[in-house]
């Protein structure tokens, strides 16, 4: 009967959508390093730990008041919930039951409940005895009244911080990776301390004026000396004792040097891994970034503009020198070949990358990267550089959305200089987005103060900008003059004063950066307040 009930419960849990959802949520909250809510939870827990320890410190000298007791209870209950939840998500009980059931059915053996229970217990005990669970438990236990003696162990709560901080986890990871060396060192140090403390005990115990009376004194002295701290509260007086001291100091220096070098070596070994981890975690967190392939002259300029405008991007360059330069500038960099599928996948072309820029100096490579990116992600926006005219077509064929030709722009610009040197200056100013005169596009947001106004009413000149034209997809303007086709929209050059602005139209303005930004903020503000009113 009990067996059947267990099985029934196990299967119903397995099929329960809600159970899975809840478990998934708890996993995201507590364990999943990629989830978005975990960092908030971690910060919350760190605050709890710190404040509870602070109260503990406060109570060393002061009387505890009611509020601190309430707070303590609150903290402990949160800790307890966390401990139990972690135990819950550590393994799936119903899996064990079902697996056992299926196995026994297959083998024709009777289903044994005790076996299953034993297995479940074994599983959960593995959790209970895992180091982090022990620390968690130690953080909770001292608050239990009969165990008040263990109050000091509340300090163990600080160890709980280990769980929530990645950098500390990193450090423990390093220590773990050097486990063998550190163990060897610890054994060697243990021997040294043992020999030295025995020797000093033998020499000093008998001599007149000797301060070492117990073996514990000797042990304490050995530790102080081997670490080269040397308080000087216990000093050897006999010749033999001094000899032991000298030997211990010299070997202590060696031990320290050895220890430091192990840690440093481990750090430098892990450094490249951390770099990669950083790339990985950035990729996983962000959803709207740019992959910049090629860190030559053009790539560097683009990277600078992107970082100035606080856009997220990843630099990929197979050239070590270029990659080093990018790392030096603090950009997230992959020193790999962008024409390989694995590199682009690693850079997250299918997770949140929005645009790929192929700006290497070699058209062949640009075509290849474009093709690879398009193959991997049919929807991504690809902007590619073409150095030669004949390659423009190939790049479009390979799947580029936009193509930029540096030499052809330069040529066009230079030719403009013949006969029109002033216009040339204006163009260069506009192309370089000078602060005192730039062309910018401002979209008219829904229900902002400009929507529905005619151009005469809008009076854009009061913002010290002049309207070059309007880009719009709306059919309302179809009968207007000066219409130029622009993909699936139209550009209306120099619109008449009676031209009515609609939601979604884009104003093309000439003005100083200052005035354009000001107008943009006005549009955004009025849009937001209109939305608030609607709500």
């Amino acid at each position, binding site marked *: 009967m009990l067996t059947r009930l267990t099985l029934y419960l196990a299967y119903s849990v397995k099929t329960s959508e809600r159970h899975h959802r809840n478990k998934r949520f708890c996993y995201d909250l507590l364990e999943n390093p990629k989830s978005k809510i975990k960092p908030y939870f971690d910060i919350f827990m760190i605050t709890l730990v710190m404040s509870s320890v602070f109260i503990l410190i406060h109570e060393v000298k002061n009387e505890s008041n009611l509020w601190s007791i309430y707070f303590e209870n609150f903290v402990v209950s949160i800790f307890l919930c966390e401990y139990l939840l972690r135990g819950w998500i550590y393994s799936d009980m119903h899996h064990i039951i079902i697996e056992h059931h299926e196995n026994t059915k297959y083998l024709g053996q009777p289903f044994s409940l005790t076996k299953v229970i034993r297995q479940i217990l074994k599983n959960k005990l593995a959790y209970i005895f895992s180091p982090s669970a022990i620390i968690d438990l130690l953080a909770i236990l001292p608050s239990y009244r009969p165990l008040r003696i263990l109050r000091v162990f509340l300090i163990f709560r600080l160890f709980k911080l280990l769980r929530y901080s990645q950098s500390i986890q990193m450090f423990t990871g390093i220590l773990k990776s050097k486990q063998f060396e550190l163990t060897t060192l610890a054994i060697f140090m243990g021997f040294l301390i043992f020999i030295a403390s025995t020797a000093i005990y033998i020499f000093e115990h008998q001599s007149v004026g000797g301060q070492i009376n117990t073996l514990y004194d000797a042990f304490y002295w050995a530790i102080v000396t081997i670490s080269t701290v040397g308080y000087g509260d216990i000093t050897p007086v006999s010749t033999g004792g001094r000899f032991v001291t000298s030997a211990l100091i010299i070997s202590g220096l060696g031990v320290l040097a050895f220890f430091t070098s192990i840690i440093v070596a481990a750090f430098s070994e892990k450094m490249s891994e951390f770099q990669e981890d950083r790339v990985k975690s950035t990729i996983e967190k962000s959803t709207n970034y740019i992959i910049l392939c090629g860190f030559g002259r053009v790539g560097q300029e683009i990277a600078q503009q992107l970082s100035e405008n606080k856009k997220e991007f990843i630099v990929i360059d197979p050239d070590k020198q270029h990659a080093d330069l990018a790392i030096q500038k603090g950009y997230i960099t992959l020193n790999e070949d962008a024409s390989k599928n694995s590199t682009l996948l690693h850079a997250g072309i299918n997770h949140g990358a929005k645009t790929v820029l192929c700006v290497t100096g070699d058209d062949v490579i640009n075509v290849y990267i474009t093709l690879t990116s398009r193959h991997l992600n049919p929807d991504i926006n690809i902007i590619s550089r073409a150095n030669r*005219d004949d390659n423009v077509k190939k790049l479009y064929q390979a799947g580029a959305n936009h193509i930029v030709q*540096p030499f052809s722009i*330069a040529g066009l610009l230079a030719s*403009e200089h013949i006969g029109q040197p*002033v*216009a040339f200056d204006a163009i260069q100013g506009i192309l370089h987005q000078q602060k005192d005169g730039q062309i910018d596009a401002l979209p008219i947001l829904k229900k902002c103060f400009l929507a529905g106004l005619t151009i005469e009413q809008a009076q854009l000149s009061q913002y010290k900008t*002049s309207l070059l034209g309007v880009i719009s997809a709306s059919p309302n303007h179809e009968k207007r003059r000066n219409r*130029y086709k622009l993909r699936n929209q139209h550009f209306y050059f120099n619109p008449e004063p009676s031209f009515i602005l609609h939601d979604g139209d884009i104003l093309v303005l000439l003005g*100083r950066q200052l005035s354009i930004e000001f107008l943009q903020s006005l549009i955004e503000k009025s849009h937001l307040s209109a939305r608030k009113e609607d709500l």
Partner: protein
Amino acid sequence: MSDSTTAIFGYNSLSFELISQLVKKQTKIIILDSDLEKIELAQKNGLIACQLDYRQDDDLIEVGVGSTLTTLFCFLEHDSENVFLTLSARSLDKKLNIISLVNHPESEEKLFAAGANRIIDPYKICSNKVYQLLSKPHLTWLLDHVVFGRADLNMAEITIPENSILDKTSTQNLCIHEKYNLFLIGVVDKELGEKLYFALGEQDHMLDVGDILVILGSHRDIKHFKKEIGIIN
């Protein structure tokens, strides 16, 4: 204007577009390069080309630096070559209009010091454009068409001639938008120097003979405007 010749140093991928644009504008050009093969190639393409060593001042004088040449484009591949050429040409002709390509930002100053009138940094323009494509895709299309005249929207600069109806008009009373269907980008007010002032309504400029208007509009409207103010009949 028709007598003046434009010389382009360097027949390479950097200068192809420039040459094709200038050919379109029917400017008199001469291609110069030190590589005989490239010169032959240029001649095969129907261009006037001449092999010469840019390091020899005599050669430069022979092609017309100091006499017939009015504009010189330095489109050589290395900054050092462009600087050298600029320097030589400047010492031969103080009035020559020299426009040079620059590869590294640190060469900008050197080129200006050597006497270049204008410099063009293709990489910087390229990166600006890529960035623009990312942040303002609509604008890029527009600039492409407007700035480089790929659609029937052109930039033109108009010097105010003598006895023009625009003489002694202020920019505010110009009404260029309504009357001529043109967009005024900026003004060079000779009283204030050579600087281009963008027409943003911050300042009112009194137009005189010799001032320059930079306008944007369709071919027809620009032509019409030129007729009105008396540049062409």
